Every structure is written in structure tokens, then in C-alpha cells.
């Protein structure tokens, strides 16, 4: 430790030389922190800072510093470099990137330093490594990565308005996100969910608000600055500046369609999963999204919402005509225009006769109202509000039609074997076994012997609750929230299957073809077939799976059909 007098001298030197230190860093500190930092800086000044070329060169000589063009005696470069490193390190430690609001002063410091030094590459590299080690590994949730990505974009935007640092630093993040399966889903759901933590939703609303500023920007020509030297010369600088947070996220994939499709699936899930739908809220979001993605892309979603709106009216109309009768079951239909909805998962389910009659009556009413149109029921979608009375227990539940059907069968007959259930419900046994765990977990059904289930009487429910606690653990949490839509992956598979018949046709007649020829031919002849474009990489993957299953032979670079 240096002597006190020396310390003071040094400190005044720092103050004199580098007002930034006084100006910003320490203004936001508590007294304790102030002292801590003061000590750190002083130590560093003594032992490290001058440990560079400026210090080593002869101070007495009247030479100009190559950094600031001042005499060495007046040179601030060393301090600046020091402060830069110091703040930079703090930036990593304090996770400043993720909390711009708290770390604004530090970022301002770095910003000032950057102008005076050539440390941009170092900063970029450090930030990149920090992001990579902290975020880009399997242990982090996609939503967390996205949050960090968003705040990184904010912070770096502030640090470097030209967007060059941002582009460099976040490149690995973008590449990584591209490989995560649930990225699109996470982005879309955070775009549309409201409440705390949905920064993206705010961002979306903000975009709608300041959409009109574009004209003003045109007038700022006299404030133009050239791009920094490390900018990618191929990229357009105005693009870099203009892209906001949402478009940066969308650009991770480079395609709007993917996002719109995912939004459609999520919307469908949400609409079908809820009994009461807040159409107004959904329409508001849809309008916001329309501003961003364009009218035509979201036309399908518009129809979907209109379906729901119309169904509400129709239900009211039907109930008005039909006074509630003996059955006491109220049926509200959701009438979907199948053309505009994403494909549903294909599941079979035989509903109980009571329900079937009810639906038939509903269909009759619909036919009477709508002239020559009829309804095609999808039994496994929708919700059932159940009230179960068993012994002294009463349960109010909202369950899937599947579970409702299951428990309704137990109403008629308290004991069922899986095989019998399979007979009446027409559902594969494996699925039945999986679904029945829901009722086991509710303590209503127990497995008496293998594949043989009995209804638990209300009186001995207490006894069984111990046994069922184990079952509870084994149930997947997301059982009920499972998506009813066919996954994007399945859909794509189906689309590629269309290509497959073309590929077979091609190879039967033309013997063997290289990949690019197949791709070209498909583009020429199969483009009218449903399913959008297929990239050459995707095609290669698809063909490779076919090679693996011995449906194709790869010889050299030529694909062939195997000899039969």
C-alpha cells in the first residue's frame, strides 16, 4: 500500500486527467462503493495502468502521444484505457448488459471511452465470450435467452447507435437461437402475452405508436456519420440502424411466414383451449401484428377470430330457440372454417350417446339456420365443464372432452377394463392408459389390478389418496395444456411427402439425378403442389432420411431408387 500523501497526489492526478471518473462513474455510487472503487482505481493506477508503452517510454522527451496527439506529459490515454478496462470488467460482473436501467452510467462511460480508444474489437470479443459462456448452453431456457438478447440489443443500441457492435456481438446468439426448436414459439408467445415481463408486447405496441417518425429521419442528413471501420461493408447501414428489437428477433429466422404460422397455431390453441375468449384483446393484438407483418399474412388469423365471434352469436341464437330440456347439458359450438385453421392433430374419440344426441340436435338447429350447410364435429377438441358429485365430495372441473368421456363411462358402470374402454371409446389402449392417469391423480379412479380400473367411492377416497400421490408425480404437468395442433414439424413432413411422389416419379424415369437437379425439377414441376418452397438444404436432409430408410440409394453424388 502506498503512503497516504502519495495516494492523494495520485488521486488528484486522476481527477485532473480524467474528469469522466468524477463525472459519471461515481455519481451513482453509495459512499462505501465510492471508497471501494477509489481504492481499486488507485491500486490499478500504481501497478498496472502505466505498465504500457506510454509509461515505458521516456516521459522527459518532448514526444507526442500517438493516441491523443498531446505531449506525453499531458496524455490521458493511459487513464482512458484503464477506465475502459475497469468499466468493461464491471460490465461483465454486474450483468450490466441485462439491466440497462441500472447500468446506464457505466455504459455511458464505455461509450465515451470507445470514442477515444481503439478498443472496439476487445469489447466485442469480451461481450461475445460473456454471452456465450452465460447464455448459449443447454441449461438456459429459451425465454431467458430471449430476454437477455432483448436487453443486450437495448444496451448496445445505446452504446453504439450505428448497430455495428450489436451485430457482431449478437451473431453467436442468433446462430444459437436458430438451432433451438422452441424459439419461434417463445418469441410469439412473449409477443402476445401481457402482464409482467412481456417486454416484447410493449415493444410491439411501441412500434405501432412511433410508426410515423420515418419522415423526420430523412431530415437528419447533416448529422450523418460514416460507418465504423469494422462494419460489414456488405450490409446496409440504414438497415442496421432501422431494425428494432422485434425485427431483429424475426430476422433470427429470416422469414416472416414462420412467425405468422406459429402465431396462428398459438392463436388456435388459445381459442380452442378457453371457454370464454376475449375476442377484443385478440383482435387488438392481431391489429398490432398486422402493422408489422402486413395484412395479407395475417388474413387467416382474422378469419379464425371471426369464426369465434360468429359462433358466439350463433350459440346465442340457438339457445334462444331451444329452451333447456331434460338433459341439462348446454352445448356451445365453435364453428371453424377448416380452410383457414392450422391442421389439427388426428385423434379418434367416440363420445357417449347422450352427447352425440346433443350434438345432433345442435347440428339440426344449425342446418335450419344456415340453409344448406352442415357441421362436421371434431370430438376431441374443446372443453367440458364438469361437476362431479361423488360421496360427499363435489368437484368442479374444466377438462378435455376426452377426460369427460372417460369419467362419464364410469358414471354408468363403476368398473371397466382397458379393453372395454377401448371398445366404447375407440381410442388406442396406450393413449387410454396415459389419459386415465388424470383421473387417478384426482383420486376418482384406481387401478384395481393390471389394466382394470374402478371408480373410487367418495367414502374411501381418503384411503386411496395416499396411493394416488405416487401417480400424481408421474403425470406430466403439461398433459392438459398439450397442443391440439399438429406440430409444425409434422406439417412440414406432410408437405415434403408430396415432393416424395415427384421424386419417385423423377427417378423411375430418369434413373439417377444429382441433388441440385432434383431441386430444380421440383421447383419447376411441383411448385403448384401444396407446401411452400423447399430449400436445397432441407431437400438434402429429406433425401438423407430416405437414404437411411433404404428408400433411396446415394451413389457418388447421384440419387437413385434402389433396385427392386
Amino acid at each position, binding site marked *: 500500500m502506498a503512503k497516504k500523501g502519495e495516494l492523494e497526489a495520485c488521486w488528484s492526478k486522476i481527477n485532473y486527467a480524467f474528469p469522466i471518473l468524477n463525472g459519471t462513474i461515481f455519481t451513482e455510487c453509495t459512499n462505501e462503493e465510492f471508497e471501494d472503487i477509489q481504492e481499486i482505481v488507485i491500486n490499478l493506477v500504481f501497478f498496472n495502468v502505466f505498465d504500457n508503452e506510454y509509461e515505458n517510454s521516456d516521459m522527459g522527451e518532448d514526444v507526442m502521444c500517438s493516441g491523443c496527439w498531446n505531449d506525453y506529459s499531458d496524455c490521458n490515454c493511459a487513464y482512458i484505457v484503464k477506465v475502459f478496462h475497469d468499466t468493461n470488467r464491471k460490465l461483465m460482473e454486474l450483468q450490466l448488459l441485462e439491466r440497462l436501467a441500472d447500468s446506464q452510467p457505466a455504459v455511458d462511460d464505455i461509450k465515451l471511452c470507445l470514442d477515444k480508444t481503439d478498443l472496439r474489437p476487445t469489447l466485442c470479443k469480451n461481450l461475445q465470450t460473456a454471452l456465450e459462456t452465460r447464455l448459449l448452453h443447454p441449461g438456459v431456457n429459451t425465454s431467458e435467452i430471449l430476454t437477455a438478447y432483448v436487453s443486450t440489443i437495448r444496451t448496445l443500441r445505446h452504446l453504439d447507435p450505428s448497430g455495428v457492435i450489436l451485430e457482431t456481438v449478437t451473431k453467436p446468439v442468433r446462430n444459437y437461437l436458430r438451432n433451438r426448436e422452441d424459439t419461434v414459439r417463445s418469441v410469439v408467445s412473449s409477443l402476445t402475452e401481457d402482464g409482467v415481463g412481456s417486454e416484447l408486447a410493449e415493444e410491439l405496441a411501441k412500434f405501432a405508436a412511433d410508426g410515423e417518425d420515418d419522415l423526420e429521419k430523412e431530415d437528419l442528413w447533416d448529422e450523418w456519420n460514416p460507418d465504423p471501420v469494422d462494419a460489414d461493408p456488405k450490409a446496409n447501414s440504414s438497415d442496421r440502424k432501422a431494425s428494432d428489437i422485434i425485427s431483429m428477433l424475426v430476422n433470427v429466422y429470416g422469414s416472416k411466414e414462420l412467425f405468422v404460422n406459429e402465431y396462428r397455431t398459438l392463436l388456435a390453441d388459445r381459442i380452442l383451449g378457453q371457454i370464454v375468449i376475449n375476442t377484443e384483446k385478440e383482435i387488438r393484438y392481431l391489429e398490432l401484428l398486422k402493422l408489422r407483418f402486413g395484412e395479407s399474412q395475417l388474413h387467416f388469423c382474422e378469419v379464425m377470430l371471426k369464426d369465434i365471434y360468429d359462433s358466439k352469436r350463433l350459440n346465442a341464437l340457438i339457445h334462444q330457440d331451444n329452451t333447456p330440456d331434460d338433459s341439462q347439458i348446454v352445448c356451445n359450438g365453435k364453428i371453424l372454417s377448416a380452410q383457414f385453421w392450422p391442421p389439427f392433430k388426428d385423434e379418434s374419440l367416440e363420445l357417449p350417446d347422450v352427447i352425440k344426441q346433443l350434438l345432433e340436435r345442435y347440428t339440426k338447429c344449425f342446418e335450419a339456420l344456415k340453409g344448406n350447410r352442415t357441421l362436421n364435429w371434431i370430438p376431441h377438441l374443446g372443453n367440458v365443464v364438469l361437476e362431479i358429485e361423488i360421496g360427499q365430495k363435489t368437484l368442479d372441473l374444466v377438462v378435455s372432452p376426452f377426460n369427460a368421456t372417460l369419467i362419464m363411462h364410469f358414471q354408468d358402470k363403476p368398473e371397466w377394463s382397458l379393453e372395454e374402454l377401448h371398445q366404447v371409446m375407440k381410442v388406442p389402449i396406450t393413449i387410454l392408459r396415459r389419459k386415465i392417469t388424470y383421473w387417478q391423480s384426482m383420486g376418482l379412479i384406481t387401478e384395481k389390478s393390471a389394466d382394470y380400473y374402478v371408480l373410487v367411492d367418495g367414502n374411501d377416497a381418503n384411503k386411496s389418496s395416499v396411493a394416488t400421490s405416487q401417480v400424481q408425480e408421474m403425470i406430466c404437468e403439461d398433459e392438459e395444456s398439450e397442443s391440439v395442433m399438429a406440430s409444425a414439424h409434422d406439417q412440414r413432413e406432410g408437405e415434403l411427402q408430396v415432393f416424395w411422389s*415427384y421424386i419417385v416419379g423423377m427417378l*423411375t*424415369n430418369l434413373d439417377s439425378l444429382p441433388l441440385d437437379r432434383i431441386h430444380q425439377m421440383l421447383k*419447376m414441376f411441383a411448385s403448384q403442389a401444396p407446401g411452400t418452397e423447399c430449400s436445397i438444404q432441407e431437400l438434402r436432409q429429406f433425401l438423407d432420411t430416405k437414404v437411411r430408410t433404404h428408400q433411396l440409394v446415394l451413389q457418388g453424388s447421384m440419387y437413385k431408387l434402389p433396385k427392386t
Partner: protein
Amino acid sequence: MAQNINPHYASSSNPAKQNEDTIKLNDNHAVSKRLQKELMELMRCSDKGISAFPESENLFKWIGTIHGPEDTVYEGHKYKLSLEFPNSYPYAPPIVKFVTPCFHPNVDTCGLICLDILKDKWTALYDIRTVLISIQSLLGEPNTLSPLNQQASYLWSNQPAYKKYLDEFYNKNKDS
């Protein structure tokens, strides 16, 4: 045959053949569209034993493949054909030839086929699929009364000998 007349020409009341170029151009488009549709249909149905696909980017030249029909002497054989579509298709029949040499009473040594629907019996209602199916069934049921290949025609009545000769012929030529 009213069906074989392009309504474009038939309805044009102007005897001075109003500028043929535009008609041709329009037609060309219509023909490609029809061929594209036929291709889609063909890929969708994927009938057993017949198949065809455009040879290259040119939609007017196709390669077809026919497997010899079961329970005939041609069973197990595979023949390639070339199909060429005129600009007036489907009002004129496609020109179909065997590429793989085929020993058959109604096919000559150059691969030309004698089949009524490819000549005077053609109507616009036929398409590639029906043509290929017809040729496939022609293999099993030749018309020995108007042969292009006399030797095959004579030999046809003696099926075992025909089969023996045919197999030799096929094995010798299948890769050419």
C-alpha cells in the same frame, strides 16, 4: 372429330387466320398448364407399373416407364418410352416411342408403336396416363392382324418359344 379441333381455331370466324403467333403463344401456355396438371395427377395416383416425368426443364418432352403386365410374357420387363407433345396437344396425340428396344408385333425396330389411340382414334379426353396404360395392355394383347414386326407376329402363337426369344432379346438390349 369435333373433339380434336382446338376451339380456338374452330370459333375464329375470321378466315384470314388472325395472327397465328399470339394464338400459338396462348396455346403454348395452355398446353404447359395441361401438362403440368397431368403430371400432378400422375404423381398423385401413382399407378402401379406406369410412370412418366419430364425429361428436363422442357415440359413437352417426357420419359415414361412401363413395367410388363403380370401374367404375360412381358412380366418382369421394364421399358422406357419417350413422349413428345406437339404444340397442339391435347388436340393432337403425343408422339410415343419405345426407347428400350421392344420385341412386339406392334412395335417396329425403331420403337414406333402401332396403336389406334395414338393415331386416328385419339381424342382430347385421353391423357398421358391412359396412353401409358393402353401401351402397357398392348404388350399383353398385341394386334397380330396389322403387325409392324412380322417375326414377332408369327412367333406370338407359340408362347413358350416367344417367351424364350423375348427374354434373350430383352436381356441383350435392356441396357442400350
